């Protein structure tokens, strides 16, 4: 199992599913791409020790790593990049047509509208940041300028807001769950 070409095959097979999974939970394609990249970098670190018998088990292991990255993002407000640095992989710049394609694959527009109803559950600060970032699709810099707070604070409010909404997002995002262990 622990062959490099098998890892490349794993990436080829599951990278898009992981990206869609993470996009639907972060509602942000760029964050999701960072998390996807770190997920595979972490997976490569653990690859020599992988002894799983079926593709389904490997996939389950991969999504466990993805969920761990997601949890880190919710807690810290930024995507981890430690494993990426370690193996010298850089995350490519997102192309404009990629953004549209990923949002379409993740069904983000319908998710955004559903989210409007869930925002009321949040504290004022988180709701405002999430509204501006996810619904109005402003950049972190624009939100920072508009609210008069640092970008880091904006990122923290958005990620914590998403964490609070995770329970609500989970069933909304569940249509791909059948494909993800």
């Amino acid at each position, binding site marked *: 199992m622990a062959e*490099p*070409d098998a890892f490349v095959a794993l990436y*080829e097979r599951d*990278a898009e599913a992981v990206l869609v999974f993470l996009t639907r939970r972060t509602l942000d394609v760029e964050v999701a791409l960072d998390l996807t990249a770190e997920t595979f970098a972490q997976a490569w670190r653990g690859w020599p020790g992988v002894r799983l018998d079926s593709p389904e088990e490997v996939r389950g292991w991969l999504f466990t790593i993805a969920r761990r990255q997601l949890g880190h993002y919710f807690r810290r407000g930024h995507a981890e990049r430690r494993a990426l640095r370690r*193996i010298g*992989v*850089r995350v490519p710049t997102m*192309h404009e047509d*990629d953004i549209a394609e990923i949002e379409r694959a993740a069904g983000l527009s319908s998710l955004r509208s559903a989210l409007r109803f869930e925002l009321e559950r949040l504290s004022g600060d988180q709701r405002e940041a999430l509204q501006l970032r996810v619904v109005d699709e402003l950049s972190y810099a624009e939100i920072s300028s508009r609210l008069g707070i640092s970008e880091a604070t904006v990122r923290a409010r958005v990620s914590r807001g998403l964490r609070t909404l995770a329970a609500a997002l989970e069933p909304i995002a569940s249509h791909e769950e059948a494909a993800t262990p």
Partner: protein
Amino acid sequence: MNQRIRVLQELGEEFERAVMPAPADGREAVGEPGRLVGQPGRRRRVSSRLAWVVPVAGRRIRFGPIGLALAAIVPIAIVVGALLLLGHAAQGPQTVSGAPSVEGARTATIVARAPDPHGGLAWGVREVRTSPGKACLQIGRLKGGIIGVLGQDGAYANDGRFHPIALEGVPFGGLNCGLTDRNGHAFINISDNDAVASAAGDATTNGSAHGAPARVWLCLASSSTGRVEPTKGSPCPRGDMRDLSYGLLGPDAVSITYLNAGGRRVTEPTTGSDGAYLIVRAYSTPPCVLTTAIRKPQCDIAGSTGPLLRSGVITAVT
């Protein structure tokens, strides 16, 4: 890799290069294809003893005021650079035969790569090491771990083929070299704001003699023998031009932050043991930089080469 989402394809290529077995010592032998090599644990924390960087490339050599802790060695670098420039200074485009060479090239490694904003082959930066202690950077389009020039934009008579760049002869892009420090690290930063998409060199002429921003840009043409000449009077389409920023920031540089063409801030890790980076953006008319001229001010928009980071594209280094 066969991903329908382009960025996933490019990320997959990054992983493929990082995880597939590399040659024994992680570097290619001279004349063999380069490969981007992941180097676990490469971030050695070393003191900031800096290289004497020799700016050799190209027709526009400028040093700017910005440069982190590197500023202290600039005068030394200029003196050493001037000495080594003798016999090296590129007077306009270079030809394949008689091009400046990386004498005694020993190893070459693809240290950074980046997608092209308009698609097609990615770009790569190759670091060529010599003995004793000299490092040079070459840039080109990347195919199968080899950097080269595409037969388009006038290069190679538009034959549409991929032409590998030889290690010991840099036909178009000029040499960008520096001496390494005692720890073997080089510090080189290059900004080229008028590169052609073929990777065959630069496309702009200097601006008017009145200090106005340059408005004329010319594709480079070459015959099948590799000789490069400007095609006078034939504007190079903006879509065939690129803004390139690349270099080696040193082993302590972990990441760079820059604004992409859409104005979005992007942070990316550097790669390799010398903090390599490469940014390829669609062409945007850069601000005019007035350069010293004997009689009239010259507007130079083309770029810079040297130890200092002055492209203006990179906003932060961590």
